[in-house]
């Protein structure tokens, strides 16, 4: 039973990943991230992605606060936040999030408020989509490990 479960789960994981790649949600950088995971850092991907989520959510929250402000004018700050988002997203291979952040950044450089608001919406959407996918991936992974008899460190 264990063996079958593992294979099935593994297949599910692969399918999910393939789909994400296909949609452009993830790219090769994510693969590199996976390659960095080994015996010495067995939860590397999980850890990094979690850090990414924490940081990104903070950034997104700040961005929203900034843009919601009627008297908003600090586009530079938006630019800085976005820079960080672009950097971290591209580092983990979140291609779509990165791309929409770049678009958002362009709008902020043009000081286009409505453009920025739209940009923010899109980024938030993409981000949440990615987060959901990642959660699903991790769940599958966890199940697979359990099925393979490996204790998943919590």
């Amino acid at each position, binding site marked *: 039973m264990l063996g079958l479960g593992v294979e099935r789960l593994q297949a599910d994981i692969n399918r999910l990943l393939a789909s994400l790649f296909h949609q452009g949600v993830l790219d090769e*950088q994510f693969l590199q991230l996976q390659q960095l995971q080994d015996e010495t850092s067995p939860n590397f991907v999980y850890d990094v992605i979690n*850090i990414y989520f924490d940081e990104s959510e903070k950034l997104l929250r700040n961005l929203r606060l900034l843009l919601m402000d009627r008297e908003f004018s600090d586009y530079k700050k938006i630019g800085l936040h976005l820079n*960080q988002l672009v950097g*971290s997203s591209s*580092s983990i291979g979140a291609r779509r999030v990165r791309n929409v952040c770049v678009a958002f950044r362009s709008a902020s450089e043009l000081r286009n408020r409505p453009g920025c608001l739209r940009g923010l919406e899109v980024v938030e959407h993409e981000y949440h989509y990615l987060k959901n996918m990642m959660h699903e991936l991790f769940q599958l992974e966890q199940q697979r490990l359990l099925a393979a008899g490996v204790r998943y460190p919590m």
Partner: protein
Amino acid sequence: MTVEQNFEALDQFPVGMRVLAVDDDQTCLKILETLLRLCQYHVTTTNQAQKALELLRENKNKFDLVISDVDMPDMDGFKLLELVGLEMDLPVIMLSAHSDPKYVMKGVTHGACDYLLKPVRIEELKNIWQHVVRSRFDKNRGSNNGDKRDGSGNEGVGNSDQNNGRANNRKRKDQYNEEDDEERDDNDDSSAQKKQRVVWTVELHKKFVAAVNQLGYEKAMPKKILDLMNVEKLTRENVASHLQKFRLYLKRISGVANQQAIMANPDLHFLQMSSSHNGLDGFHHRPIPVGSGQFHGGAPAIRSFPPNGILGRLNTPSGIGVINLSSPPAGMFLQNQTDLGKLHHVSSLPLNHNDGGNIPQGLPLNLEFDQLYTNNNNNNIRNMNNNKSITGSSMAFPSFSTQQNSIIGAPNNNLVVLEGHPQSSPPGFLGHQINKRLEHWSNAVSSSTLPPPAQNSNSINHQFDVSPLPHSRPDTLEWNNVSSSYSIPFCDSATTLSPPPALDTTNPRAFCRNTDFDSNTNAQPGGFYDTLQTRQSGNYCPTTDAMLSSSNPKEGFVVGQQKLQSGGFMSAEAGSLDDIVNSTMKQEQSQGDLSGGDLGYGGFSSLRTCI
């Protein structure tokens, strides 16, 4: 070190290289850290620039390389870059999510040795050690001449951190901390003399000249001159020696058929020259004809300069700053220096830059000279082709300033610094002036065909005999002759280089002219800076040739023209350095090629600004 040893060191080196990674983005920092560990580097991370600076300041030798993000909340990455470069002289790689060329340019101008784009790929990180090696090579070349007592040979990688640290400190501090006596004093271990030397500033000299003129050249006696000048703390001895030099100077320039040359700044010229003479015993022996009072081109005078000036103390940081043109003829000067105490006139002039007391005094002199020099030099260069006489003076200046550099300790550094300063951060700014100076030198040296000098004083005498030479050749070549003539003294025994029969291959130690800059083009600043540093050591001459030619063939080096031979000495080592440099270059390139298409990351481009 043999070639094999060098290669071995290189092989092991990237492993364990200590990297400090700074990025406020935790995600990227974590990934970067892991990637770096995968490359077998030793990684320290921090997400705050301030903390990074603290870590670096705590112990400069604790890290080999710094990788820093550009956009950080607590401190701008470029600022950190500058500070690290300034204080610690470590190679810094910039990291950014922005591929804006302006940022990249800013990185370059602030001295970053590379600019990577996020996401960082491991292939790129595998190559970053090259920056450490490169900067060590450069530092070694630079410090080698001046750091002989450390016994550092052509050790690129294997060189001790201390050596680098010291060289780094020296260079950086000399460049940026003009008042940093401390650093210099630390390194000027041979400085035992603490006499107060009189610095003959332009003003002072003007007074002197006015007094002499007033009294009448023939009748000018030190005591009377002193009275007329009415300057405090000036002793009769000071004046006497200055007078003697003045007379020598007049004699010298009157012996040259060069018209006009330094007419514009006879005072300046004299001062420059005289300061270089200080250490020369030879001068004492020469007959001093009472000159015509006309100042001709300074070239011949310069020729007699000898290395005295130049050397100064190779082992002191002072003369070695950016322009190490002055370093070569160390031997001669060192010899003379021991005799310095005996020469009364010496004591009155700012000879020894080891002398702590000199430093503040020397400043005005050099600063002024620097300005005048560069102005003149630039003018001269422009008029070069039109005005023969000017070329003579243009030749004069280069040697002067460099000689002065060494002679007048700290001020020399200032002199160098003034010009080198912009270079220190990112090449390209003043590189011009230095370029031109070097051009002169290198051109001069390369085409000289003067007979080898027998000895110090004899060679000086020869100079005068040779004086007509400058005029026998047209335009640009004129300089070559003029300046080449003063290469002769450098080929003195002290420098241990056999005087070349044809000065085409001149003692590289004399003038660090590894690169024969095309007079009409300025070599690429970055490369220029490197070459300046590399010039310091005669050892490296051939190597730098190779390095320069391999690193940037576009620089217009007429490398072939000048076969810098280090008198046969270092050729073996140079060869090995060449090999290493070439091999590292090749490695870089091949790795660069790999990284290009390897994982095919869509749209990721890493900008190599420094290869």
